[in-house]
Structure formats: C-alpha cells, structure tokens
C-alpha cells in the first residue's frame, strides 16, 4: 500500500463519509465521479448512518495476504439505517452467531498491516449492537 493511496481514502474510511449528488440527491459510498442516476458530476459530503443490519454474510477462512491474523472473520453486506449499503467485516462476535437482520454498529479498527515495516491500515468495521 502506497502512502498517497492510503491517505486519499482516510477521511471517507475513518468517518464513514459518502457523497450526495447535488443534482438529484442520490447518495453514494464510496464517492464516484459520475452520478448513476442523473449523470451529474457535482456532489456534497454525506455522513453515513453508523447503525444498520446484516443482509447477507460469509466467513472468510482462507484470507488474502495481510489478513491472516484475523481469520476466520466475518464479512457482511450491511444495510444502514439511512438505506445505504456497504461491505464490512463484522467483529467482536462468534462467526456462528451472525444472523440475517442482526443489528450492527460502526467501530474504528485496525484493518491490515503491510508486513513489519509497512503502513498499518485503519478504518471501519462493524460489531453487534448490544441492546
């Protein structure tokens, strides 16, 4: 992971910051150059909801390099309370306990390390909401 590539995505990943189209109000995460609904290229920031529920999920048993120490880990498609969807790991839970509709909330976590001397990457993961 190169420094500029990591730095560029820091704000959206650290704050769950997406975009809302200035033309038609469609919301996106992550940002994209052209609105899929109206073709506009003008956007404003949109803060995503931090609570949502699991739509579908998997348990990754054989991870790509850099994720070994977290295995097995859950990755889910999550629908947030504002209707936005994203992919995220779900942590602080036994993989067998995850269910469709489980309520989850965003947390700030370590995501990956590039070996002993590389960048330590951080960002969002989700964990079950304790009611």
């Amino acid at each position, binding site marked *: 992971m190169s420094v500029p590539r990591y730095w560029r995505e820091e704000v959206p990943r650290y704050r769950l910051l997406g975009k809302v189209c200035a033309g038609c109000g469609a919301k996106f995460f992550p940002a994209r150059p052209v609105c899929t609904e109206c073709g506009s290229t003008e956007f404003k920031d949109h803060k995503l909801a931090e609570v949502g529920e699991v*739509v579908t999920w998997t348990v990754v048993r*054989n991870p*790509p390099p850099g994720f070994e120490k977290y295995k097995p880990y859950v990755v889910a498609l999550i629908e947030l309370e504002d209707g936005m969807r994203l992919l995220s790991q779900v942590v602080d839970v036994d993989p067998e306990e995850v269910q469709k509709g489980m309520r989850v909330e965003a947390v700030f976590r370590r995501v990956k390390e590039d070996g002993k001397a590389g960048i330590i990457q951080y960002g969002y993961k989700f964990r079950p909401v304790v009611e």
Partner: protein
Amino acid sequence: MRKVAVAGVGLVKVSEHWGKPIGTLFADAALQAMKDAGTDDVDGLYVSNMSGALMQEQLNMGALMADAIAKQGLHAVRVEAGSASGGVAFHEAVKAVASGYSDCVLVAGVEKMSDVLPEVVTKSLAMEEEQEYSAYTGVTKPGLSAMLYRLYLGLYAEPSEVGMMAVQSHDNAVGCRHAQYPFRMSIERAMDSPMEADPIHMMECAGVGDGAAAIVLVPADTDGVEVAATTVATDYCSLPMREDPLTLGAVRKAAEKAFKLAAVKPGDVDLVEVQDDFTINGVLSLESLGLVERGKAAKFVAEGGAARDGELPTNTFGGLKARGNPLGATGVYQVAEVALQLRGAAGDHQVEDAKIGLAQNMGGLGSTCAVTILRRLGR
C-alpha cells in the same frame, strides 16, 4: 461485417505443468490449433491472460507469446478482463476478422497458477474486485459468491442442491483428456469438505491449475462452425450498489444481446458452458442467461437437467470445477469445447446432434461477462 468461423482448436490438459514456462505452455496450445486449422498463416494474435503480471511478473504478453511461436512481427495484443479475459479476447478476435482488418486470427489464453503460493492465488482473485472498498474489507472472491449463495439458500434451495453443480461437472469430466480432475465426486464429499467461505465448501470451488487453449478464426464458409454472436457486458463493480444481487446484470445483458444477434431463443441452445468457478456462480449464471427460470436452476441441476443427456447439457467436459480453471485461459477453453461439440468431435462427451452452443465467461462477481453463441453450418 463478415461472418466468422472457428477453423481450429488446441487444448492443453489443465494440470500443474511445473517444468514448462508460460511461453511453452502457450505454444503447445497455439501450435495445436494452427495444425488443426491447417494453416499457420495468421495475421493477428489475441492473448488472454489474467494474472501474469502478478504470478510471473510479466507484462507485454502479446509480444512475448508471438515471439514464443516464432512469429516476430505479428500484430499481437494481450487482453485482460479478470476471469472473463478469455471470452473478451475471443470477442475482440472475432471483431478483427469480421471487420476485414484480419483474415486469420489466433486467439489463445494462457495462465500459469502453479508458480505461486495459494495465498497469492487468493490475492490475484481478489484483484478482480474493486480494491479500495471491496477488497479492502478482506473479502475474497469465494467470499463474495458466498454472500449470494446465502441469499439464494434463504429463498430457493438447499446446499445439497446447489452443490450438485459441482457433482454434475465432475460427472461430465470423466474420460476428458484435457480435464484436470476427470473423476466423479459425490455430493457427500462436497458437503463434508471444509468451508472455504461459508456456506461455500472447498469442493464447491474450482481448483488451481496451469492451462492454455487456442482457437483459429477465419471468415466463414458454408460449412463448419460459425460464430453466431459474441457479446460483452459489464455491471456495477461493487456488490452493495446492485439492487438485486441475485441477478447477474452483465450476464443478463450479454445474453439478451447475443440471442438477438444470433437470432436464436434460449430454448434453441443444445448445450452450454457456464462459469461454475463456485457452484452458486454456475447456478446463478444459468438463471441470468435466461436458460432456467429464476430460483429453479439448483433444482434443475440436482434433478439431472444439466447432465450430458439431460434437458440442457451443461459443462460437457467438466466446466471450471473439473476441467479446470486456468483463469485467463478458461473462456477460450469454453468456446473451443463448444466448437468441438458442434463439429461432432467431442468423442465420449458428444451431445447428440448439437447445432447451437453457448459459452458464458464471467469476471469478478459478474462485473464483466462475455457470451458466445456458436452454430453448426451445413449438414
């Protein structure tokens, strides 16, 4: 645009070719295809390869492969579209002949996966996905398909039905000389294998192998195997953006256009090769192609509909699961296999009186799809 025909095919057995460099593997298939076509007078080369940049640290593969077959000076280019590289390269090669720019084109896929460790293969597959917000989560290629699998299970089928896709592909591979795993596998073996990405079992995933497949294309005559249609379509690269994740939008679009161009209906298709790199992908592909009704494909396969003597013979040489899945070469294997069927040259794998065959090659989680329809001329 001219009509285009398949003049020759060459297939290398998918295996672990430890002793062969990638250029030699490529040449084995390319020379076979030119010999089969009865000409080596090609004026264009399309090389399909997905992961050479990572696995062999090799770019500029067009020139490298032209050089390998002693055709320095040839127009040559490498095509990369993830796991759909083979189908997309075939499409580009067909256009070259159809337009009149080229008169005899070689399209050949090659991939050498045994040069790297399994985790590098995992990384390479994840590189087909958008990196900053999809692969960033640590999700793998089977992991993404697994999320669709779970949605499918909630609505339409049991795992032991979806898993039959792999069992069927293995059944069809028995006796196939170019297949990596030409043996039967029981549904119990698949369902008892460890989880790769829940609910996908390891034995529901295509393996890792080296392979090369080649096809020679020329303008069509009145006999032989014609390219009735070849199309490419794309979809959202991010799963969360898709309104209905169980419809593979690129597959649907590419198929609809191909049926229109070829002037055939889904019901006219005599055999099909689909992207069963994971069982669920094969199942969803049959549905999104319009060949089996939504929600019915797992049961269709489990009830024998996809057998070689079934209603819709599917993956007649074993598909990605059993013939093997050398990524960038896979799409070329599929089209070559359909051509063998239509020629009546499929041996023990022959589908009786096959006139129209379809091949579907998909990259990423269906973000790119190439569909090819071949038709037997004359006779």
